[in-house]
């Protein structure tokens, strides 16, 4: 017996059309908001002279970390500047910061909801698995059809890929608060939100911070893919280098991404440690 192919692809496309048809204005609003955030970050990062910003970041690294980190920041960022990649790097950074910010703003509350209810967790977990394993190229296409080309679909794709660790580790951190401490909070008559803010979140903070750190790293790893749909930045240099087989250009841009990654990672980690 010959079973007909299930027209899964058709269904998805029809669903996509339906969404674009009915929710066009909503997508426009989202696009404007995200574009606004990216522009704000870009404006701040680029209106400061490169050298001033480099010194500022190195000082920040010295304050929250060690002189070694400050030295690395100074040398690494000067190298980016020297290679002529400062402006695209800052564009990419604006994209990463936007995606991370939105991921945190939505990820932490969703993680808290997951920790409070097994029902919510059981729904959210498979969605997160889906988001993390579905190849990014696949959801770039609908992102473009909803938000058109440019940095916004890049931000959306980055969020989809980068938000799961924040949600997962917020949920985990809260669930790992020892049962007798939660009992003690209840026994003294805490409201649910007093328990959350006075006990669960403070104790879950290291775990939440680890999640946020992962989210930032994953967002950064999306800059090249985002450039395929028109996001400007250092990712676009890599992408162009690949398509034109220019190893040297690709390597230079790659180094810039690595330097930003290491800096973001160390800075966030040390900042969280210093805080706790």
């Amino acid at each position, binding site marked *: 017996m010959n079973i007909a192919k299930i027209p899964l692809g058709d269904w998805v496309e029809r669903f996509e059309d339906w969404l674009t048809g009915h929710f066009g204005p909503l997508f426009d609003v989202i696009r404007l908001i995200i574009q606004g955030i990216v522009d704000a970050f870009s404006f701040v990062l680029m209106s400061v002279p490169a050298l001033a910003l480099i010194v500022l970041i190195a000082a920040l690294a010295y304050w929250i970390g060690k002189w070694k980190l400050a030295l690395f920041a100074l040398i690494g960022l000067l190298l980016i500047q020297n290679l002529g990649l400062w402006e695209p790097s800052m564009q990419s950074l604006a994209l990463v910061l936007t995606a991370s910010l939105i991921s945190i703003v939505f990820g932490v509350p969703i993680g808290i909801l997951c920790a409070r209810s097994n029902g919510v967790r059981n729904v959210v977990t498979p969605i997160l698995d889906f988001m993390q394993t579905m190849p990014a190229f696949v959801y770039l296409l609908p992102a473009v059809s909803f938000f058109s080309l440019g940095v916004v679909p890049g931000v959306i794709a980055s969020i989809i890929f980068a938000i799961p660790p924040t949600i997962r580790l917020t949920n985990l951190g809260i669930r790992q608060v020892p049962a*007798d*401490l939660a009992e*003690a909070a*209840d*026994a*003294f*008559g*805490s409201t649910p939100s007093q328990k959350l803010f*006075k006990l669960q979140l403070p104790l879950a903070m290291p775990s939440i911070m680890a999640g946020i750190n992962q989210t930032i790293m994953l967002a950064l790893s999306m800059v090249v893919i985002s450039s395929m749909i028109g996001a400007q930045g250092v990712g676009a240099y890599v992408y162009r280098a690949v398509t034109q087989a220019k190893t040297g250009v690709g390597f230079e841009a790659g180094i810039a991404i690595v330097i930003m990654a290491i800096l973001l990672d160390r800075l966030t980690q040390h900042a969280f440690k210093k805080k706790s």
Partner: protein
Amino acid sequence: MAILEVKQLTKIFGQDPKRALAMLNQGASKADILKETKMTVGVNKAEFAIEEGEIFVIMGLSGSGKSTLLRMLNRLIEPTAGQILFNGTDVVKMTPAQLRQYRRKNIGMVFQKFALFPHRTVLENVEYGLEVQGMEKKKRQELARKALQLVGLEGWEHKRPDELSGGMQQRVGLARGLANDPDILLMDEAFSALDPLIRKDMQHELLELQSKMKKTIVFITHDLDEALRIGDRIALMKDGVIVQIGTPEEILTNPADPYVQRFVEDVDMSKVLTAAHIMYKAETIAPERGPRVALQLMRDSEVSTLYVVDKEKRLLGLVTADAASRALKENLSLEEVMERNVPRVKPDAYLNEFFELMAETRLPVAVVDDELKLRGVIIKGAVLSALAGNTIPEAGGA
């Protein structure tokens, strides 16, 4: 009136508690229900009343349901059926907001593993119960400091819990439980995690605190020695059922069933019974009545010694039959012939504290209280018979 009255309180863990409850009401046992429905009867129709100001100990081995029972009293565990009346109000029927008020104002708790908040200082831990009530910072800090003083931890306010020893951590737990001045304090195996010496100190301190503060305390333990030492009354639990409620003496001397009996058998009676438990009534005489009356009294009551006491029953000394005869012959007063160096113990001394004294002396040991009044007398036979587990004589007064 009882401050807390528990009626038919039942907890069933499982998928369909109503079904198990119906079976329970038809007389099914815990084992039957487990076998048939895979549900566990945690507490089975507990019924008791706790009086204001008493230390009520709930005792049982692990799995006996004592911890579940305790947690139902402030609804950390929701009861399946039954009533908990706090000054007449049913706690089970309280709305979440009412329950919070009850937890904030009326019922505190101390936990087995302390359950201190590691991210807060000692003072902030003690403040917690007041903080969630919305009390302003200055006032709650003042109350928290007072509570810390009460448990002897002034000067440690700004340490973190993990900088403190186990005993000190539990003092913080105790201070936290006392800070909002609740009517009832629940203590869940509060001293079980401490080593034996510290544990004994804490028991002692709890009793001292109790004598000052007159809280109603519900204390859970699996240790009979502890239960006997601190409990005004003890409820013994087995398989979710309260098998006996009584004073320590009632439990020891009159175990309600073989289960309690077995529990009690292992008790080292010498650490439980005090001088007051085993003393007999002492035969006494006032000094001015003279040797002739003394000898007559000895013959009448068939004893060979008399205790000489003044009008306030304060012990002056002891006369033997020989001494009384000598006084009669040589025309001396009782005070001139009596033995003033009488071996004595306090009424609350444990047997094991005066074994040695008993062994060293030929004379019976006098039981004398803090005001030097003679309360009774202990003879060797009574000690041996008490240790052998025989009936304890009626406590006698002089």
